[in-house]
């Protein structure tokens, strides 16, 4: 399995509902959260990706965690203002190195 999971991966309740019952509580929440973060960061191991795929569609708390983590990451990426370097600083650096 080398398919990468990206933000377009569908995570929802549709997939497996017919075959497996949805879990309402998760006994490995802390581990699952770490795994979910690694998935979203693009740093998950193959084993973690596999576990995530098996687990994510059948566990309600994990689905919720996934959405929250993804949403926070997107807010940090997209909403928090990125400060730009004042032009005078860039100019001062250019002058300084040619001295």
């Amino acid at each position, binding site marked *: 399995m080398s398919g990468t999971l990206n933000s377009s991966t569908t995570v929802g309740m549709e997939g497996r509902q017919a075959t497996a019952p949805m879990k309402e509580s998760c006994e490995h929440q802390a581990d699952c959260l770490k795994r979910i973060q690694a998935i979203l960061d693009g*740093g998950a191991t193959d084993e973690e990706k596999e576990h995530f795929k098996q687990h994510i569609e059948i566990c309600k708390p994990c689905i919720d965690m996934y959405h929250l983590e993804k949403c*926070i990451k997107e807010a940090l990426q997209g909403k928090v203002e990125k400060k730009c370097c004042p032009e005078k*600083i860039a100019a001062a650096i250019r002058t300084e190195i040619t001295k």
Partner: protein
Amino acid sequence: MTTMPEIMSDTQLQGYTDEQKYQVFNKEFMPHIDSMYNFAFRLTMDEDDANDLVQDTYLKAFRFISSFEQGTNAKAWLFRILKNSFINDYRKKSKEPAKVDYQDVETTYNSDEAAETEHTTDLRFETVQDMIGDEVASALNSLPVDFRTVIILCDIEGFTYEEMAKILDIPIGTVRSRLHRARNLLKDKLKEYAASMGYNKNDE
């Protein structure tokens, strides 16, 4: 100095001519100046300190340019210098409000592994979606600097765990666990913030 071929191979790092130094500097280093400034600003939380930190870092980078291998990750290389300059020169005098000793925080969180398992924020993703950038930024700014740093590097700058490990001089496992703790803290802050602002008023 002997004439260098126009295209240098990886093994010819050591002897940049002056002209090549400027070329590398302008082509590889300067394009990252806004990211560097943003990082400096988020670390120091002060525009003047950020200006100084970015200048110092770029001048250091120029001075040590011969140890930069062309074709390798310039952004990570620069971020590492900036982070080290911050720790050595700015951290003590930084105007950070509630200064929390990182070791204390890390110890608290480590000793709290059991509680961590129970760490479920009832923060809803819709609440976060409704927040504006400044609200998220102030939650981020309220984190101790080491936790803030990993979130900036990972979520704002998009560095990989491996790059972060190099920038911070810590193992990848530590990067991951620090990020995990940082995010738990951030969620607590976001939740506090949401409560104080009257978000989460309760569902339909």
